[in-house]
């Protein structure tokens, strides 16, 4: 198993290297102007040179993302718990939730700007509103799939709904929850950058917007690289946490024969 794992990783890394090498060669061979598509090497140089300028914007974007994410998770867990526990609440709230979730979030940014002015607040709110839906759905699903027999065993012992939620429902939901966190953190990130691009004077989104209006294309791409790097980093962090907390859910497959 170990050997296959390492080989798989080598292939993945190889593909990434190959991608950049192909890009570099393509630009060199076609003599592509860096106003259209800069070479990756140019982008890296720009990234390193401008890093001191980019840093506060990175911090801003990260902070906005995390704040929106944390609020989104809190709201998502609360709403998901209510919907998951009560069938009535589920049936009542679901149409409205679907309605909200199907609104393209870029369309609500102007409204947030109208209410709170441009800057950090609309970015946080956009991040929140875009990331909370997957959490609601996953928490609700996790809670709704509790085995009825176990629920009966506990009810026969006089367990309250809260007892069952705390001892069975929530732990059972953890794999669903962490799977949704990975998705949600990426969404929150997208939301924050989106809002910065439209209405902010700080953050990576804003840097890219400004750079593109100055035709500083390598800087635009440098911003893109930063975003990709941050996105991957956040995903990895939550995958690691997931593995730590809910290892039981993946191990469960190694069932020993009867």
């Amino acid at each position, binding site marked *: 198993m170990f050997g296959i794992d390492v080989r798989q990783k080598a292939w993945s890394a190889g593909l990434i290297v190959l991608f950049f090498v192909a890009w570099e060669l393509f630009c060199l061979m076609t003599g592509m102007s860096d106003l259209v598509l800069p070479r990756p090497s140019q982008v890296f140089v720009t990234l390193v040179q401008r890093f001191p300028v980019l840093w506060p914007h990175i911090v801003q974007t990260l902070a906005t993302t995390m704040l929106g994410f944390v609020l989104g998770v809190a709201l998502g867990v609360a709403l998901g718990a209510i919907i998951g526990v009560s069938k009535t609440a589920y049936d009542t709230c679901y149409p409205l939730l679907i309605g909200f979730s199907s609104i393209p979030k870029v369309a609500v940014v102007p409204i947030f700007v109208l209410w709170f002015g441009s800057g950090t607040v609309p970015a946080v709110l956009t991040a929140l509103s875009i990331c909370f839906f997957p959490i609601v759905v996953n928490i609700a699903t996790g809670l709704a799939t509790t085995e009825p027999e*176990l629920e009966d065993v506990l009810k026969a012992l006089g367990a309250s709904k809260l007892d069952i939620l705390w001892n069975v429902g929530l732990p*059972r939901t953890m794999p669903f929850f962490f799977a949704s966190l990975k998705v949600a953190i990426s969404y929150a990130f997208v939301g924050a950058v989106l809002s910065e691009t439209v209405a902010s004077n700080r953050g990576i989104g804003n840097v890219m917007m400004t750079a593109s209006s100055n035709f500083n294309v390598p800087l635009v791409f440098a911003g893109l690289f930063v975003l990709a790097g941050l996105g991957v980093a956040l995903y990895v962090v939550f995958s690691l946490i997931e593995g730590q907390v809910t290892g039981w859910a993946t191990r469960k497959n190694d069932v020993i024969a009867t």
Partner: protein
Amino acid sequence: MRMQPNAQFDGQPVPEGSATTAIELSEASVTFGRGDRAVPALSKTTLKIADGEFVALVGPSGCGKSTILRLVSGLVQPTSGVVIVGGREVAARAMRVGMAFQNPTMLPWMTIERNIMLPLKIVEPFRSKFRKLRKTEFRDKANALLEQVGLKGFGNRYPWQLSGGMLQRANLCRALIHEPRMLLLDEPFGALDQFTREELWAILQNLWMTHKPTVLLVTHDLREAGFLASRICVMSARPGRILDDSRVDFARPRTVAMTFEPDFVALNQKLRAFIEDARSAAQQGAD
């Protein structure tokens, strides 16, 4: 194979021929749904079970056997009639009975001993002491029970590391950990192979002989009923009624070999005839 009585349960009342009634159903009926879609599950059933009895409920499938269990545990309220358990009418709050189903439903993120201790987290007087005693007294208690069902040393394994038969034994332990006066079993061995099942009969018999809870066992298996029960109630097809109620007086501990002796086979055949009748009556009713 016989187990020594467990010291922890010595304080439990052991009914030596006592006539204390543990469960009493009088004219209890249950109907699910309302109006046109109402399904009668149980009709005017009267049943009296003494403290410490081991009663098996047998009958054609869908006859309301499980409904009786759910009535006794307080999970379902009678549509009409009265259900008295442990001297009180069963209200919405159930009264700490131990239950086990065919599906062992062990929580996959907990070790077996922590799974077994779950009822202690819920039921008083253990609940308030759980934090303090979960690593000492309660854990020992769980492991003592595991030892009685032949799972010594498996306490710190995870459910996915155990076979189906082992999980079902752990399930019995979980149903007994809070020292319930009543044990309700709904086809607990239905999903197991014949040999494992027979092995678990002996284990359940030992548990019953040691702890003496009142047991109500729902089963499809007539041999299982004859092996385990001190009394067998045969139920009619839906809506269920009790057709026959007979004592089983074979000496204990019973062995699998006994189930092939003429007396036992005769009992089996008698029960079988009742169920056949009930089934054909139901079919005629349907035509």
